Each structure stands twice: as C-alpha cells, then as structure tokens.
C-alpha cells in the first residue's frame, strides 16, 4: 500500500523522542495554564506554581482533571491564557445547561490545528487532485471549519457546502465530481436512500473516500457505507475542547485512529477511580492539549469511552491508535452529529410557564436520520381552550429548544399526568435508535 505523510518527521518520530517532546510541551502548557485565573488557582493548590514543578511525564498525575463543568464555570474568560489581541477565533459549544463553553485560538493555535488535519487527510491517501465536499456543519461547530482549512492546506479542491440540503449535495457531487466527502454516517446513509429520488446511481458519482465522524458508529456501518457508495470510509474523531476534528484519524489501513500525540497527550482512565486502565483496556479518554496557547486544557475528561491499540500500525506512524468510541460516561445524546444533554432540554421546558412538571425525551430514527421528540405535559391552569394558543405554545417550545440545543425538535403536548413519572432524569430519555 502507498503511504504518504504530511509531516513524516513528526508522524514517525521514535517513541522516546516523542516522550521528550511531550515533556517539553507539557511544561510550556502548564506555564501557559498558570496565566489563567482558573488554572492559577487549581494548580497552585496541588503544589504546581511553575513549569519547573513538572519534572517528568509522570508528574501529569499530580494535575487534577478538567471537566466540562470547569469550562462552564470559567465561561467566558476564566480559561483564556493570552490577551484578546492574540486571539483570532473562538468556538463555543453548548454546555450541559444553558451556559456554553468556549475555546479560544491564537493564529499559531489554528495553524497547528490545520496542520494536524492536513496530516489526517494525507494519511488517507487524498491529494491535491481530490475534490473535497465538506458536508459537515460550518460555524461554531468545529467539524466543518476544521476539515475545511486542513483540506485547503493540503490543496484539495474544497466545496464548503456545509450540512443539509440533500438535493444540492447530490447535485454538487455529480457536477464537480467530488471524490472525498466529510459527513456523519447517518447523513451518508440518508444520501444513499435519496439517490433514486433524484434519478441517480452510485456509478454516476466519482466518490472515492468518506471521512465519517461526529457520531459513534460500528464497523458494520462502515462496511455498509463503503458498499453502498463503493468508497473507503475513514473514521474521524475530535471534540471542540481539543480544537475539533483532527485529534485522531484513520490512515489507509483503517485499523484505529492515530492520535497526534505530539499535540494530544492521551490517557485512558477508569471513570470511577480516575486511575489509568491497563493496556488495551477500555476507559474514559483524557486529553491534554500540548500546543494550544490561548486556551490550555490539562487532563480534559472527554466522557468518551474507548481503548488504545497496542500493536504498531504498518503505515509506520508511531502515534498510537484510538479505537472507535463505544460509549459515554455521561448522559449526552448525539443527534445527527450534534451533542445534546438532557439537562439542556429540561432547563428550556421547565422555564416555560405553560408547561407542567413532567416531560420526556424521545430519540428515534426517521429514515437514516435521527429525530428528537420532546413530550411535555401542559399546565392545566394555563389552558384557555384556544387551539391557536396551544399551537403557539408548541412553536415557542420548539424555538427555545432550537436556540439552546441547535437542533430542530418535534414537540408534543400532553395532558397532565399522562407521561410516566420517573425518579431520575436519565429515565426521561427513551432512545430507540438501533446502534449504528
């Protein structure tokens, strides 16, 4: 198999040399972190007041974990390590409640992120002769922009179409002979189901590769998409707290995703104890971003569950490989690639006076795509007998949910006492989707 590298020196670096580099970068990151109010306080409490307190990579264990709640508490400036003049972009994502989280980037941060994405693209064998149709959402969501800049840097012809509008997607694929696409697995299945409607066959398209991510899927779904489109599917993983896509990506061997360990210091921990798991065991993935200077994050708990492969990859890259994400250690839902916390839905519906005390969240498949249904009980005292008032209420709940969780839910109104009553909020969620 032909192996190409974007940065061969970095990608095939000896492990010992990589470890030395990581230690140097970890010290720099701790130094940067100490400039933020959040870490200055937290690191000093555990006896780290300068980079000199980090003597070896083992000292990483002295640093407490950082969680999404920490980011929320630090919102908006608590984790900013540089002056705003240095910041060239920010991405926010929804927190577990109404307060979002924010990640800032300097020019150098974006440059490094783009370079990592370029590595991913080249690792799959794509070249500047490819036409890249980016069907991932642009904007605050990092999926679209992350791949966009990486693909431009490699020199692919980028079609920045963004998410949705299947008819246009298919038209573009056909007219510009797109060879590489970036999407969620559900969306690819949706496109496959729509092709006949537009009178097209797979052979009318020129697709060769699909970069699929933003939602977990199985090996079977990879095979299904590969067979449906006659393409190679590469698994992609990232999260906005670690810049976005480009954290880890599959190479031509498609046997796990190389984590760019010269940027992402990776641990797999037991989510209950916080202790490292033994080799190749499944656990929660924890990352330290070693390169980002605007928002340094140390030992960030992703809540994603996966494991690291032990064996070497025939591609020659020395960076270890992450397995598929097999689950979450929290109750986050991924709906058409968008992360949604049940607590966000609760916060929205419970602040609307016409809504009673009970609600339920249903997640279903509608064709290949996910559908979110929020069922709420109406508050009987607010009932006027007016049908249009009820329709308006439904629209209001929809609008407020859309503003908070960035996806379009269906809302159902129910009579008080008609929805099942539960103790914990987890049981309010009914997810009937078959695993992808």
């Amino acid at each position, binding site marked *: 198999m032909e192996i190409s590298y974007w940065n061969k020196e970095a990608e095939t670096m000896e492990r010992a040399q990589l470890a030395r580099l990581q230690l140097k970068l970890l010290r720099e990151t701790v130094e940067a972190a100490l400039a933020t109010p959040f870490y200055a306080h937290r690191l000093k409490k555990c006896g780290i007041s300068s980079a000199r307190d980090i003597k070896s990579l083992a000292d990483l264990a002295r640093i407490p974990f950082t969680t999404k709640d920490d980011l929320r508490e630090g919102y908006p400036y608590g984790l900013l390590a540089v002056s705003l003049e240095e910041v060239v972009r920010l991405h926010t994502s929804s927190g577990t409640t109404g307060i979002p989280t924010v990640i800032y980037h300097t020019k150098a941060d974006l440059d490094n992120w783009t370079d990592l994405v370029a590595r991913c693209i080249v690792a799959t064998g794509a070249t500047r002769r490819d036409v890249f149709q980016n069907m991932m959402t642009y904007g605050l969501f990092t999926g679209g922009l992350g791949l966009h800049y990486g693909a431009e840097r490699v020199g692919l012809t980028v079609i920045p179409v963004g998410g949705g509008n299947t008819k246009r997607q298919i038209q573009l694929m056909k007219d510009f002979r797109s060879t590489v696409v970036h999407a969620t697995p559900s969306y690819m299945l949706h496109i496959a189901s729509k092709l006949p409607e537009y009178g097209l066959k797979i052979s009318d398209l020129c697709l060769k590769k699909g970069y699929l991510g933003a939602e977990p899927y199985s090996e079977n779904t990879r095979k299904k998409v590969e067979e449906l489109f006659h393409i190679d599917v590469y698994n992609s993983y990232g999260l906005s707290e670690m810049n976005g896509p480009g954290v880890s990506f599959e190479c031509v061997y498609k046997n796990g995703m190389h984590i760019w360990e010269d940027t992402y210091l990776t641990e797999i921990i037991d989510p209950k104890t916080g202790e490292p798991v033994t080799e190749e065991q499944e656990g929660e993935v924890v990352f330290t971003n070693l390169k980002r200077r605007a928002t340094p994050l140390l030992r960030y708990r992703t809540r994603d569950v996966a494991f690291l492969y032990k064996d070497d990859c025939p591609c020659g890259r020395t960076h270890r490989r992450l397995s598929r994400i097999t689950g979450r250690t929290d109750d986050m839902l991924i709906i058409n690639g968008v992360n949604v916390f049940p607590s966000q839905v609760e916060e929205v519906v419970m602040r609307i006076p016409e809504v009673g005390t009970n609600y339920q969240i249903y997640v279903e498949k509608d064709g290949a795509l996910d559908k979110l249904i929020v069922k709420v009980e109406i508050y009987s005292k607010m*009932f*006027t*007998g007016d*049908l249009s008032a009820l329709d308006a209420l*439904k629209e209001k709940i929809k609008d407020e949910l859309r503003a908070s969780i960035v996806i379009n839910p269906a809302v159902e*109104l129910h*009579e008080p006492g008609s929805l099942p009553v539960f103790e914990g909020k987890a049981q309010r969620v009914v997810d009937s989707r078959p695993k992808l």
Partner: protein
Amino acid sequence: MRINQISVFLENTKGRLFEVCSVLGQHKINMRALTIAESQDFGVLRIVVDKPAEAVKILKENGFVTSLTDIVAVEVDDRPGGLAHILEVLSKEDINVEYMYGFVEKALEKALLVFRFDDPDRAISTLTKNKIRVIKKEEIINL
C-alpha cells in the same frame, strides 16, 4: 346572552374522547352541541352541555384539562340562506367570528348555531338589533 362552552384538551391517544363522553354520561350530563378542533397531535373538544359548572367540576376531578369559554348561541331558520343572513349582519358591523359550529334541533325545526366572538357583548346587541334570536342560558338547559 352569553353561554358557557366547555373546552377540553385532548391528546391524540386512543379512546380519549370516549372517556370524556363516558364520564359526562355517567353523571347524567347532556351534551347539546359538540365539535373538535384538531391540530397535528392534539385536539380541543368544545361542548355545550345542560349543566356546565357541574360538568367542569366532574371533568377536572377526572383529570381532564378543561376551561370555560363564553359563546353565543343563535337560532336560525332551518332553510337555505339562514346562516348567510346572520353572517351578513355580523360582517356589516365588522364583528369577527373566531369559530362556529352548528347543530339541528329537530323539535323546533330550527337550527342552532354556536359562535365564538372576540367581543361577545357587541355581537349579542348587533344580533338582537337585527331580530336574530339569541338563545338564553335556561333554554340550553331545557332544550
């Protein structure tokens, strides 16, 4: 004169309408007029009954979301153009009908129409002025 209409919120589940009617039946409450306004996944049942206050109490006790709305019931000759005449009168006075429904009272050979107006009092005086008979509360009970 204004008459009470009962509105009942109905979610789109099997047998829910039956349950409302059955509860009212058990308590010897007689329905005079009925209509259902429906949306995608729920509806509002609108009924005129002989004993509205009692009906609301019973429905609430049985867990139904209900409310009372003022409506105006009008008698109209059961012949072609009967309704058109009434609507013409209302339209001339610029009175808005939010919704309406009708039912035929066999014994009287008249049709009864139920109107929901945004300004019921003005509607009543306009109708009366134009010699259109507005049904009284007691009449609904004794129909």
